């Protein structure tokens, strides 16, 4: 039985929900607006800002002055690199735990989760000094490794919960039909596992893109991804609202779009399967 809702009530909820939604979204909307204004216009009163001229100049300036795309490509490389490396290591582990569980599987999963709880600041110096010794400080490789390690528990967990949902009976049926292990993997399991792997990749690219403890502490000019590049605006010279806005919009746009597609996976990934 569907609950009947009066149109009157639906109008009220719609208005209220849109008002709240727009209010929450407003800071993002506002930097989008400011990114198209001149620096002089960007600090005027909100109404004057809206009425002033629009232009793409800031986007060009940000690129010219600071080689924005170097930092952008650092972000892309670090987030994709750490995610794919993590997937490569996590798929076999999650696979074996889901399909060949032993008495220790549960313990291992919980232990992996516990490594995620380690506060980064607690191991800041050992990592920092280790990076200097190994020549990894301010390198993209260093960040790929660190971000892979901090996200590995989440990757294993997410994959595990997805693989767990693949019915084992299907494997047995394939085996009865005489499928070999290789065929079993290739034609039966892989197609069923791909959606889960894709979701895991999506969420972890987002997490790695936005990570802002290690990226701030372990990079300087060379390997700095967007998180660290944007932080350099915290000690500005002169007028910079419009340029900061343009840099920010470009930094968050790809992830906003990816994020909107990953709402479901987000819940699952970040609660370690506790809420689905």
């Amino acid at each position, binding site marked *: 039985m569907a609950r009947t809702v009066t149109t009157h009530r639906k109008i009220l909820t719609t208005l209220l929900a849109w008002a709240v939604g727009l209010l929450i979204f407003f800071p993002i909307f506002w930097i989008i607006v400011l990114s198209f204004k001149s620096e002089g216009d960007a*600090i005027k009163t909100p109404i004057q800002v809206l009425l002033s001229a629009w232009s793409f100049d800031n986007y060009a300036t940000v690129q010219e002055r600071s080689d924005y795309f170097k930092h952008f490509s650092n972000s892309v490389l670090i987030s994709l690199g750490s995610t794919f490396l993590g997937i490569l290591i996590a798929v*076999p582990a999650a696979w074996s735990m889901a399909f060949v569980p032993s008495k220790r599987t549960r313990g291992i999963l919980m232990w992996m989760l516990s490594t995620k709880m380690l506060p980064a600041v607690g191991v*800041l110096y050992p990592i920092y000094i280790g990076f200097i010794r190994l020549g990894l400080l301010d390198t993209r490789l260093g960040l790929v490794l660190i971000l892979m390690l901090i996200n590995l528990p989440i990757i294993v967990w997410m994959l595990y919960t997805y693989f767990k949902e693949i019915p084992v009976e299907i494997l047995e049926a394939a085996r009865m039909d005489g499928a070999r292990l290789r065929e079993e993997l290739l034609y039966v399991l892989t197609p069923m596992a791909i959606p889960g792997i894709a979701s895991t990749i999506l969420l972890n690219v987002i997490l790695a893109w936005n990570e802002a403890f290690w990226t701030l502490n372990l990079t300087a000019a060379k390997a700095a991804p967007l*998180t660290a590049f944007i932080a350099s605006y915290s000690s500005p010279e002169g007028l910079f609202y419009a340029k900061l*806005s343009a840099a920010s919009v470009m930094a*968050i746009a790809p992830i906003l779009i990816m994020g909107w597609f990953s709402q479901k996976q987000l819940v699952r990934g970040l609660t370690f399967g506790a809420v689905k």
Partner: protein
Amino acid sequence: MATQHSRSAARLMMAPAVILLLGWMLLPLTMTLVLSFKKYLPLRGGDLGWVGFDNYVRFVSSSAFWPAVTTTLIVVGGVLIITVALGVLLALLLDQPMWGQGIVRILVIAPFFVMPTVSGLVWKNMFMDPVNGFFAHLSKAFGAEPIQWLSQASLPSLIMIISWQWLPFATLILLTAIQSLDSEQVEAAEMDGAGAISRFRFIVLPHLARAMTVVVLIQTIFLLSVFAEIFVTTAGAFGTKTLTYLIFQRVLESQNVGLGSAGGVYAIILANLVALFLMRVVGKNLDA
């Protein structure tokens, strides 16, 4: 189906992940532990020998420690209260039938995808700046004196910025939980004459209890290590120095590594206490 052969294959498949995480956990942790018992000043003499529990005592008795604990508690507590309370209300609202639900949902969860340095700087400059910020223009329009947000009301400002980032997370998880609520149960209660408030109190809220616990625990772990938002807004000034930030300053800014490491060990113990509770909740789910 698990033969001896597949068991050893399984172990082999798990090995890389287990070994990496083991190394990642043990190596730095051991170093931090060792350093915490030493007087270690990289820029002023380096390793100056073992000092027993001296660093642990000094970290706790320094004048910066208790303010940092208080700040940490206020920030974590404040953000938790705001995000959970507003999150429940928002989740209830978004669960109602309306036009454009998908778009509203997108608007609401957007802040979660904004990187911490961007949200910190955007709030600091474009909104909280006492001269050119949006709030300052708003105050002036109403004839009021603009507030020096990040210096005069530093903690509330910080809590507001962080809550803006985490409200989507709480909302999304609570909304997912609400949508799994059995609607027949609610209808039955309605037919029995239960009003909206008692339906919420006796059916919705108990159903949400587990999701709320998960939100609180996970957020606590992330909030205890909030860093970038403070780094780009106040850099720890105006009473916004949390425990995490204090340790960061001891280790990297003043290069007192022994002292900072002792602080790090405290932070690890604290996080593990929270984690213990979280693992219980998550662990229960594994059995199901």
